[in-house]
């Protein structure tokens, strides 16, 4: 565990913890964006530049903005503060601890963690590009088609609404 890993881990955990604990919904999203950025930097520290930058581009640049917009469009100023209920807190904590325990047990008992020094894989952007364009070209195309269909669907829904309003 290097110093930079410790800093990034603290940043990520603090960001995501604040996202759960803060009262104001917009503050929560901003804190979550910090957590996303921390995860992106962890990827970068592992030498996965493509994944790291895509994480920033997609999660910080798009998902956080989308969440913030959704909150802003649906809530007014007064209901911005979230209600706190202790029973939900307790239930949430139990679920979180249970999930953490299962994941931790799975990681500790898996064969991957037995290797002391895993070989450093050099995943350059070029390799990822080659893999996407040769071996995984079919899944890529299908995903592209799916996303296009979703895009057209969203446009159609938005257009229907306008007709009704007229």
């Amino acid at each position, binding site marked *: 565990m290097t110093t930079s890993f410790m800093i990034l881990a603290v940043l990520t955990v603090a960001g995501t913890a604040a996202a759960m604990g803060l009262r104001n919904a917009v503050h929560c999203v901003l804190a979550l964006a910090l957590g996303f950025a921390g995860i992106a930097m962890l990827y970068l520290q592992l030498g996965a530049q493509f994944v790291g930058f895509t994480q920033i581009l997609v999660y910080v*640049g798009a998902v956080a903005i989308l969440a913030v917009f959704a909150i802003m469009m649906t809530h007014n100023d007064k209901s911005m503060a979230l209600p706190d209920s202790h029973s939900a807190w307790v239930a949430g904590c139990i679920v979180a601890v249970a999930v953490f325990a299962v994941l931790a047990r799975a990681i500790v008992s898996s064969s991957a963690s037995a290797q002391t020094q895993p070989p450093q894989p050099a995943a*350059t952007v070029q390799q990822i590009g080659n893999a996407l364009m040769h071996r995984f070209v079919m899944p890529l195309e299908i995903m592209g088609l799916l996303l296009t269909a979703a895009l057209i669907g969203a446009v159609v829904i938005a257009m229907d609404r306008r007709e009704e309003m007229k």
Partner: protein
Amino acid sequence: MTHLALMTQHLDQIFVLTSHWLLSYLPIALQPLCSAILSVAAIIIAFATLFALTTLLERKGLGRMQNRYGPNRVGPCGLFQPLADGVKSLTKEDIVPIRADRAVHFMAPVLLVAASFMGYAVLPIGRNMVMVDMNAGVLFFFAIGSLMELAVFMAGWSSRSKYSLLGAMRAIAQMISYEVPLVLASVVVLMQAGSLSTVAIVNMQATYSGIWPHWFVFTPWGFAGFALFMIAATAESNRSPFDLPEGESEIIAGYYTEYSGFKFALFFLGEYIGMFATSGMAITLFLGGWSAPFSFLTWIPSYFWFFAKLLTIISVFIWIRGTLPRLRMDQLMNLAWQFMLPMTLLNLLTTGIWHFMLPGFLRWIVCSTMVIVPCILLGSGLKYKKKFQIRTYHFSQ
């Protein structure tokens, strides 16, 4: 190597050599850290100075275009005006609205300036003058650019003012819409260069056949890509004619309405620094980065060419600002989704065809037609059934 050639080479590398010389006095353990600090300081000083110069140039240039003098009181020909502006913004009172969200209100300008400076890490300013040569450099640039949207939102939301919120919504809608053509327009270069590294892209363009350079802008797809990139870059940096998010006359400076003093200056700085960064990326992708425009001019230092190109683009920005009126919101969105997006997609196809056709005259004809004809058809298609006439206003006549 002759004496003269050696001298020009040293002049070209003067900043690199100076940095090496300074670092050689330090212990080895400290060298990577100090090298990074030195490069960051150099970038911040160089581009902050350019920012000061540009504000003066802009006010002078706009003044000329509008038949007035522009600033001419401070120093000779108003040359110290940026300095006076800086002192003014530092000494002004920092007003935060009572209902504002103080923490977010404070962090927004800081994040904006930090994000806009980070893009320079991958811009090759001269030969061997790049801070980090990442193999995903272009991706890094666009990822950092997307952080600015978050900063704009933070500024607009935390002010708790309707003008700020309106400005932020407009700005984010505009930035997201134009990010799509911006990225797609630069993909053509990545396709042709086969690399995401900015250094590799510039090195590919810095060769010559005869006296002519191999800049990507001198190909049909490169020219179309450059034009589309620059339009999207203008919108991305909220410059006129796409300055609706600020729109002084309608929503009084948009998302930074409630900022004053130095924080306002930071927004101003962030916006210009972001504009320089996007222009620098356009230079890197299409205009050959630091390479000279003719092979017989290569003796002039490489950083000179980068800044010469940057200043040319800035002048064009100022010229456009003095010439074109502001667009309406629906016109802005229509341009992005109905014209820019189809054109960038077509340009991708053109680049593919260019790549697989044999070099020669035929390739030029086919690819030029593929760019020009759809552009004209799309333009006239969008104009179809729209009447253009002199607008009459209810209250002004």
